[in-house]
């Protein structure tokens, strides 16, 4: 990869939904050069959601596309760059993280925040793939209009399914929900369920699943199977909307970070993935609640954690790895009395050798990642670096005399 083709940023954010745009806002506002790579229009799934009733600060609700335009505008206001391209592959093995796009772009950054989101899950029914865009749909706002005065079927019974179905009743003559549960039972929450039961355009088929979608060129009917009787019936319909949850868009990572068996990325409270300097935010993360507000929160946390990481790594490089003369690093901890008691001795050794030996103190509690990298588990521990490499290691317990001998050995280069 030619270096001149590579564009370099502090932070690259993969995906421009609520998580990515919030991360971009926080990162660019803290003066990090920030790139967002988004394959379509910024906004993610929220950008194709007609109406959001539960995003705080908007009594009466807000349109999904409109809210997402505000998210994008606010990120751009602080200098975040948003490029429309699809990320094809990543390489997180080096100190600089590399990201390549389908459009041939090559980018590198000190930190990457993965916000690829999720996409609607498909069922793999006979006819489903063939009739996509021909009456089979996963996007009510995209395709609802086609079904004005027509009859449609909705598969699914969670919050999203029921809300989207009710949106579709604005157009359709009837919306028939195919529900696997017993009569009256939905996965959707009570407030949404009660509203749906009152809607005269909503019809219900209980204890049932769709086995097949039929049609010649466009959808004509579905085959419904009753789970109690195993009876199969054909129901004529003009459209089939499928809302059965989502799957994470993480295939492009090819296992570059740790994921669960369903492909969701595993990250901790700081949104740190299994790879240093790589963070994850939003729906693609293993988490309890997938909403715009939790995606935005993830994004803010990830950006702040990434900023801290970049500054720590830069500081460590500048103070410890880059200097031409040897560096003595004392790993200490405010909770270790020994490390506090021994520090004056370390300082005396460094002062006496000022100019030929620099002292850097690292709090292992605040810098767990760097401490972990050098396998420091207890404080105090002293490492000597020369031209970026560890050349001596002094474990606790030690004495001022022993450390003096090691320091002089390092300086003399023997």
């Amino acid at each position, binding site marked *: 990869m030619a270096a001149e083709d590579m564009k370099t940023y502090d932070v690259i954010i993969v995906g421009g939904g609520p998580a990515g745009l919030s991360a971009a806002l926080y990162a660019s506002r803290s003066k990090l050069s920030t790139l967002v790579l988004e394959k*379509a*229009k910024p*906004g993610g799934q929220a*950008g*194709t959601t007609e109406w959001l009733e539960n995003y705080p600060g908007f009594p009466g609700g807000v349109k999904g*596309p409109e809210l997402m335009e505000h998210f994008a505008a606010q990120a751009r206001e602080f200098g975040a760059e948003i490029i*429309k391209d*699809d990320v094809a592959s990543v390489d997180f093995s080096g100190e600089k993280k590399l990201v390549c796009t*389908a459009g041939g772009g090559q980018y590198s950054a000190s930190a990457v925040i993965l916000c690829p989101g999720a996409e609607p899950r498909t069922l793999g029914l006979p006819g489903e793939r063939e009739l*996509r*865009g*021909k*009456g*089979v*749909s996963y*996007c009510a*706002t*995209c*395709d*609802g*209009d*086609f079904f*004005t005065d027509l009859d449609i079927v909705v598969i699914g019974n969670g919050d999203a399914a029921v809300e989207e179905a009710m949106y579709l009743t604005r157009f359709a003559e009837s919306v028939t929900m195919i529900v696997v549960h017993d009569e009256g039972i939905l996965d959707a929450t009570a407030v949404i369920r009660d509203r749906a039961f009152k809607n005269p355009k909503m019809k219900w088929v209980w204890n049932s699943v769709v086995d097949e979608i039929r049609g010649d*060129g*466009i*959808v004509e009917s579905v085959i419904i199977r009753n789970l109690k009787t195993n009876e199969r019936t054909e129901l004529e319909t*003009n*459209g089939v909307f499928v809302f059965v949850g989502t799957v994470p868009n993480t295939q492009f990572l090819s296992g570059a970070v740790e994921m669960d068996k369903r492909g969701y990325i595993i990250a901790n409270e700081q949104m740190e993935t299994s790879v240093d300097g790589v963070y994850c935010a939003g729906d693609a993360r293993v988490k309890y609640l997938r909403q715009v507000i939790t995606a935005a929160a993830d994004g803010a946390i990830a950006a702040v954690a990434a900023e801290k990481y970049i500054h720590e790594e830069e500081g460590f490089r500048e103070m410890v790895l880059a200097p031409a003369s040897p560096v003595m690093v004392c790993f200490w901890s405010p909770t270790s009395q020994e490390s506090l008691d021994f520090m004056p001795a370390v300082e005396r050794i460094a002062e006496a050798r000022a100019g030929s030996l620099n002292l850097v103190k690292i709090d292992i509690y605040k810098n767990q990642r760097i401490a972990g990298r050098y396998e420091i588990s207890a404080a105090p521990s002293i490492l000597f670096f020369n031209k970026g490499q560890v050349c001596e290691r002094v474990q606790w317990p030690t004495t001022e005399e022993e450390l003096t001998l090691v320091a002089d050995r390092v300086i003399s280069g023997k």
Partner: protein
Amino acid sequence: MVQVDKVNFEEEVLQAKGPVLVDFWSTKCEPCMALLPDVEALEAKYGDQIKFCKLNVLENRRLAISQKVLGLPTICIYKDGEKVAELTKDDATAANIEAMIKEQIQ
């Protein structure tokens, strides 16, 4: 891009000489809005070899359904009044549309 609708579809698309691309879109379809600049860029590149049209399905629902288009975005190519190629939903990417155009103008 030529705006086509139920009035001029026959003349502009079905009766036209040479290949015609039709972008079925609507103002409510965010993926369509995201795709539109890409299609316009392709028009700048291939507009001399293939005619570019767009059809807003909001006012032309019956026409779209008659063309067996029931989902957005959908990009079709017509030749001599017949639909010869089509991309819909996730398949309707800038790269796929360009490949489809190249195949049809050979």
